[in-house]
């Protein structure tokens, strides 16, 4: 209403005061006078999908830190927070950081007044120490659409008003769709009564479900990416190991057997730790993601080796003999006759191994790979609700349930009979392989 008038008046006053201040600086007070300078002005990140993003319409905090010289005598500080951004004076924290390393904190006593978008702090005693003055304003809600938020400030020192220069803008991003949906949900009566129940709120809070979904989805893609690379890459490793284990050369057998026994005999968690913290110490530096893939690949290689070995041994000896009797070399018999049958036989086991591997990607959370569990964890830590874990569980089940079903189907099929029949005649003629 009177804000335009108010602003104009303020602006004029500021111009006048800046002029006055400069004169004062040049004249009466020699050294420090107008040296209150901006150190930083930041907003507290509050987005769940990006830890350093500040988003609109979500609670945040503004921190303004300024440096003061000794004898400055700052009596009053006014923060002007732009229109569209709301704030609260609850939890307001005003602190002086002094000492050489600015590591001494002193609470500053003050009286605060809020005048529209202005927050005025009248200090009980003028600030005369050299150091940093830090003001933290809590309960800040930036505009929903985001944008660069310019906080302005002025101060009164030794009776003269000055403008605080060079305050950086706070980059605020627009609120995401899910965040908006979550905030809308929070207002719904049914959600409120749902969340009144402790169990439902802890495990199935709809507002957190909505916000954690896109975040945990990032982790889902990461987990899938890890397993989608590690699993197929593990197959040749496993085949090689299986051949080595069945080799007639003691050395190959020994190497492969030792490897398989070590990998299968130690927890994957430990292997991950050794790879992530041990290898770099040995001078081998591999970035996080490929290293995660490699560890998972080498681990599943050992398990699949045993699956393959058992599978190869389960293909009847007559198959190799038949192939060899036709003049095929050992390798040809292996690749064209034994392996195709082996793969067919071990598909259920391989599917199980895939499921295990997929679930085990969660262990990479411990070493900073941002996979499913780690994303869920970060939200659990900031909300105190278990709901993101439930969302994560759903993401696991989305993959594991259908695969388990397929495995069951394949196992049944392996036990049962081929359903494919070429002609009705054949169907009646050969109900089982024994009969004509």
């Amino acid at each position, binding site marked *: 209403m009177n804000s335009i008038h108010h602003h104009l008046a303020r602006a004029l006053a500021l111009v006048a005061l800046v002029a006055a201040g400069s004169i004062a600086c040049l004249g009466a007070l020699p050294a420090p006078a107008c040296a209150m300078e901006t150190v930083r002005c930041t907003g507290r990140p509050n987005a769940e999908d990006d830890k350093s993003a500040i988003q609109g319409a979500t609670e945040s905090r503004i921190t303004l830190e300024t440096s003061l010289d000794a004898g400055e005598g700052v009596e009053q500080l006014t923060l002007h927070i732009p229109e569209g951004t709301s704030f609260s004076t609850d939890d307001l924290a005003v602190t002086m950081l002094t000492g050489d390393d600015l590591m001494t904190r002193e609470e500053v006593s003050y009286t605060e007044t809020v005048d529209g978008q202005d927050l005025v702090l009248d200090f009980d005693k003028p600030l005369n120490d050299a150091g940093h003055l830090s003001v933290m304003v809590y309960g800040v809600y930036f505009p929903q659409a985001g944008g660069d938020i310019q906080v302005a400030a002025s101060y009164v020192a030794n009776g003269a008003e000055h403008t605080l220069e060079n305050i950086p803008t706070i980059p605020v991003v627009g609120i995401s769709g899910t965040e908006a949906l979550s905030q809308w949900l929070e207002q719904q009566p049914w959600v409120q009564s749902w969340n009144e129940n402790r169990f439902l709120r802890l495990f199935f809070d709809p507002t957190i479900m909505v916000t954690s979904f896109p975040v945990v989805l990032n982790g889902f893609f990461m987990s899938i990416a890890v397993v989608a690379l590690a699993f197929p890459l593990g197959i040749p490793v496993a085949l090689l190991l299986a051949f080595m284990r069945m080799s007639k050369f003691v050395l190959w057998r020994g190497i492969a057997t030792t490897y398989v026994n070590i990998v299968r005999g130690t927890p994957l968690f430990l292997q991950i730790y050794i790879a992530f*913290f041990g290898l770099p110490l040995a001078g081998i530096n591999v970035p996080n993601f490929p290293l995660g893939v490699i560890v998972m690949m080498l681990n599943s290689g050992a398990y699949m080796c045993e699956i393959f070995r058992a599978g190869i041994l389960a293909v009847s000896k007559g198959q190799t003999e038949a192939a060899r009797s036709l003049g095929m070399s050992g390798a040809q018999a292996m690749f064209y006759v034994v392996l195709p049958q082996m793969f067919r036989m071990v598909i259920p086991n391989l599917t199980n191994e895939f499921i295990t591997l997929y679930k085990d990607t969660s262990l990479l959370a411990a070493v900073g790979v941002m996979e499913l569990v780690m994303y869920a*964890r970060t939200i659990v830590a900031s909300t*105190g609700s278990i709901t993101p874990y439930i969302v994560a569980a759903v993401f696991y089940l989305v993959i594991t349930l259908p695969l388990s079903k397929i495995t069951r189907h394949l196992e049944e099929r392996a036990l049962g009979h081929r359903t494919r029949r070429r002609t009705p005649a054949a169907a009646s003629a050969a109900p089982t392989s024994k009969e004509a």
Partner: protein
Amino acid sequence: MKNWKMTKLASIATLALAATLGLAACGGAPATEGSASTDEGSGEFTTLTEGTIAFATSPDYPPFENLVDGEYVGLDMDLGRAIAEELGLECEYVNIDFDGIVPAIVAGGQADAGLSGISITPDREDQVDFSTPYYVDNQAVAVMNDNTAITEDNATEALNQETVRIAVQSGSTGEEHAAEYFPNAELVSFPNFTDCFAAVQAGQADAVCGNIAVVEQMLAEAYDNEHVVYTSATGEEYAIAVSKDNPELLAAINEAIETLDENGTLDELISANMG
């Protein structure tokens, strides 16, 4: 009636979850007295297991909490034992990753209170109640000694680069601090604070950000090839987290802290552990 059922259901489910996670293992006794029994006698507080107070802690944070030869040592651990003594209870520690402590207190069933160098923040205050603070700490960032790109002189700018990876403990104030003051840097989160230092050693991260007392302790004890390049007087206050459903316990803990503060025990513990 309906409400009673829901509460019952909730506590059963919570128990089931705790049991499934295998975290109820410490002490073994199940939470026989849930929120249901808090309404008897206003001054009396209840704990999960009668006669015992269970603190959730993440023992990767010397000199506040650490495991030495299987013993819980550090300022927080001594404080917990002193508080338990004041309250006439047995003291028990439940090992939970740091980012799981506040959720565990909210969910209940695993521990009575969180005692793990937990700074009071408005976000956490929304979820749990905090006791009177017993220690004030600040933030620090450490890098390898041979890191010439990030020095004490340029740390504020040098750390805020897209190419810089900062290791932080998941759910810690160090994570929040780094996110706010070095928004351009990439944060690498670890559940375990000691792993953050190992990650810097291993080159998985360029810097580690966390509470100064712990950073200094870690550098002094294990990582003398890293040094502090940045400090910030955030003045975080460490306090004990208690479930909002258990104000009686909070009051009792506050009373104990007050006593320990007045009789000088708290100062003794601090100087003994921060030496």
